[in-house]
């Protein structure tokens, strides 16, 4: 106890900027790994079917097919980072599609107003989920399981158990299948052209989600709540309010997915939707977001959604039956999460 003052500097100055650099590097590695996986899967299919798989048309088709699950997984990422889960996004999406059709087809509200209304409706569903989690203190699994059933039922009630078809003249389908960036768009500028608008919508949504997560209070409190909810509350953050906001934001993506799927099909199909929530969750975990909360990235989720889309597309092209596609997807999820855990364990964090 006498000469410990001389000891102080060696104890105090050990870690510094170096450690945090290693940290952020490790996070990069996580994304690189998922991205590397995507590339490898893509390369393998390209080698097996060089004439069909790596064509512009097929890549466009892959991106197009990734949109709906991708949009749902953006919202799911926000929720999962809190340490929660949202099982209601699949049927919630179906309900939003039905609401969109109700607004636009049944009530004759113009598309330009009806679409935002449908998206906001999704936000309301999310806010209800968030309130049930934050104020009623229901476990997110239960709260959103209930909402999953409620949404499925309401979709059937509102639509009277029948699909609602969009009048082609309204231009609603163009939201998904139109090509805004066609040959005439900014002619002369070298751009990839003639891919469906759905891809643009997804890209913009992903950018917005990234900004939300990395640059706004929503994202910061999202990560903080997932990391240590009690500490966040004790720090003076209104955790309940923010939980509602986060679930509501996730719901907006659900609403958007509802619009995009109904625009793609040209109709709102009330009986669909179930099962999408699991694909969305799969995309999130493949992308390296931890189900225990506190960390995650939108880029990872987008890569995860693309991995699922590439797998589905490629396996179809090489004529693997649907049932085996599911088996393979399941194994990919296991591998992705296991690789992630291996890395975190070795890193010694948590």
């Amino acid at each position, binding site marked *: *106890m*006498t*000469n*410990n*003052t*001389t*000891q*102080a500097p060696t*104890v*105090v*100055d*050990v*870690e*510094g*900027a*170096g*450690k*945090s650099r290693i*940290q952020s590097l490790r996070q990069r590695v996580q994304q690189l790994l998922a991205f590397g996986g995507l590339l490898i899967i893509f390369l393998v299919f390209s080698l097996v079917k060089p004439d069909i798989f790596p064509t512009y048309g097929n890549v466009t088709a892959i991106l197009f097919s990734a949109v709906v699950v991708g949009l749902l997984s953006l919202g799911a990422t926000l929720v999962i980072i809190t340490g929660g889960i949202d099982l209601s996004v699949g049927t919630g999406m179906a309900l939003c599609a039905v609401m969109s059709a109700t607004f636009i087809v049944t009530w004759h509200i113009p598309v330009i107003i009806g679409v935002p209304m449908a998206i906001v409706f999704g936000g309301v569903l999310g806010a209800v989920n968030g309130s049930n989690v934050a104020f009623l203190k229901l476990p997110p699994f239960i709260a959103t399981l209930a909402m999953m059933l409620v949404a499925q039922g309401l979709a059937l009630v509102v639509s009277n158990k029948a699909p609602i078809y969009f009048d082609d003249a309204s231009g609603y389908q163009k939201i998904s299948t139109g090509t805004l960036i066609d040959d005439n768009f900014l002619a002369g500028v070298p751009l990839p052209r003639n891919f469906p608008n759905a891809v643009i919508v997804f890209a913009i949504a992903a950018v917005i989600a990234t900004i939300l997560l990395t*640059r*706004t*209070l*929503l*994202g*910061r*409190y999202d*990560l*903080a709540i*997932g*990391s*240590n909810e*009690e*500490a*966040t509350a*004790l*720090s*003076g*953050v209104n955790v309940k309010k923010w939980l509602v906001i986060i679930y509501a934001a996730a719901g907006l993506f659900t609403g958007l997915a509802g619009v995009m799927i109904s625009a793609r099909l040209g109709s709102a199909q009330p009986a669909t939707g179930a099962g999408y929530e699991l694909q969305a969750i799969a995309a999130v975990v493949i992308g390296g977001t931890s189900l225990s909360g*506190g*960390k995650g990235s939108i880029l990872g989720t987008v890569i995860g959604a693309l991995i699922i889309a590439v797998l589905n597309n490629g396996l179809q092209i090489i004529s693997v039956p649907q049932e085996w596609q599911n088996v393979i997807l399941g194994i990919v999820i296991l591998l992705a999460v296991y690789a992630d855990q291996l890395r975190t364990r070795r890193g*010694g*964090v*948590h």
Partner: protein
Amino acid sequence: MPEPAIDQAAGTHDPNLLLQAEGVTKTFPGVKALSGMRLDLRKGEVLALVGENGAGKSTLMKLLTGIYPMEEGQFWLGGMPLNAKHPKEAQERGLAIIHQEFNLMPDLTVAQNIYIGREPLSGSFFLKPKDLDAKAQELLDRLGLPLDPRATVGTLTVAKQQMVEIAKALSYNARVLIMDEPTAALNDAEVDTLHDLIRRFITPETGVIYISHRMPELKRIADRVTVIRDGQYIDTMDMASATIDQVISRMVGRAIDTSARPENVRADRPVLLSVQNLSTKELIKDVSFELHEGEILGFAGLMGAGRTEVARAVVGADPRASGTITLRGKVINPHHAADAAKAGIGYLSEDRKRYGLMLGHSVSSNIAISSIADKFSRLGFVDDRAISKVSDAQRTALRIKTPTVAQLAKNLSGGNQQKVVIARWLVKNCDVLIFDEPTRGIDVGAKDEIYHLLNRLAAEGKSIIMISSELPEVLRLSHRVVVMAEGRVTGVLSADDASQESIMALATHPDADLPTTHPADHDHEDAR
């Protein structure tokens, strides 16, 4: 802060005091946690607050900072009534508290943690990360804290995480800083750093309430000490004139002999456990020691010396890179703690919340968990009645303060949680018990009980490894002391040779008698 308007009508409070509590009463279902509690904090002083587990210190602090709603009584801050409804309000009034359990988000950076809830924004939604880091850097520089604002908090040592907590607290321009057991997880050098920080914080307009069980430390840092017992105010003394024994006797209501020495020290006992040339990939290098039957073998050293890592490697909780473990002349090779427990080695973790307890389970489940398979089940059916009976016996024997063993572990105070973990290994009846910081965060009275318990167990023939950062504890109990530094054993002292000076010499000068290869690569103090 504006000069307080003196409120004549409000009673007996003294507006010249920085912080005052009067007649504070708080009742929990079945328990009167506080009754007519009072407290005076003068301007410019460090006031120590001491009391046994469950004396009401934490309750008082939680009322003060608005975590619990006030029931009866009144707080005054600088002569103005203070009734914080929630922690944020207390913070804004200039009351900062560092809880024993840190309230940090491990996945966020230092800067993000400090300014959580007060992020620099453009507009009211978009973050300004550069401003945040700059602001944090400025604060850390002002406080003289060697922290990188961009470092992820979860990767920092306990001492550094505490610095983050302090920086966060002081960033609110606090007038009153409350610290609950701030040094429980710090080594002596880190304690000195903390005390320097406290002294720098003290001005004629600020004050510190310092809750601790480490008496010698209070002597060094506190001006006065307030003693509470069983939810009631007992006394306030000047630290300079009060002796430690006086303070302790007021706390527990009886005198405790603090000069006790190891019992039943004998050199002729057979070796029970032998560890040879143990190394791990991370930190431990070539550690060898022997544990005799009926011996208490102390492990001393600074934080990060590798004592916990040795224990974890021995029981197989962490992988061993090399080394031989021999128990009763037979080589054993435990791959996880269950193997070790089966062989008869029980490990009691230093971090009970993380590695010790299932917080959401009952006291009895926590006590029984290690023994269910061999003691409390028949043909795979769990005998809950036996579990309750044995747990209840332990509750009585260890004086675990809980109305029933069906109580959830998380509802117990820290010291009582620790007793639950101890009870677990006592029920398991292991021959080798590895106690890692057995009295961390436990009050003096309960510590004494645990010391007697360890002595009793050794006398009954148990062999005990006791890792402890408290030298008086090591000196009081250890038949021999293994001293470690930087992952190596730097010396083994007999009870007669062991002294604070001899241990600290070995702990702080690891290269005195060892040719150290590369002292530079020691950035794994947090490798736990």
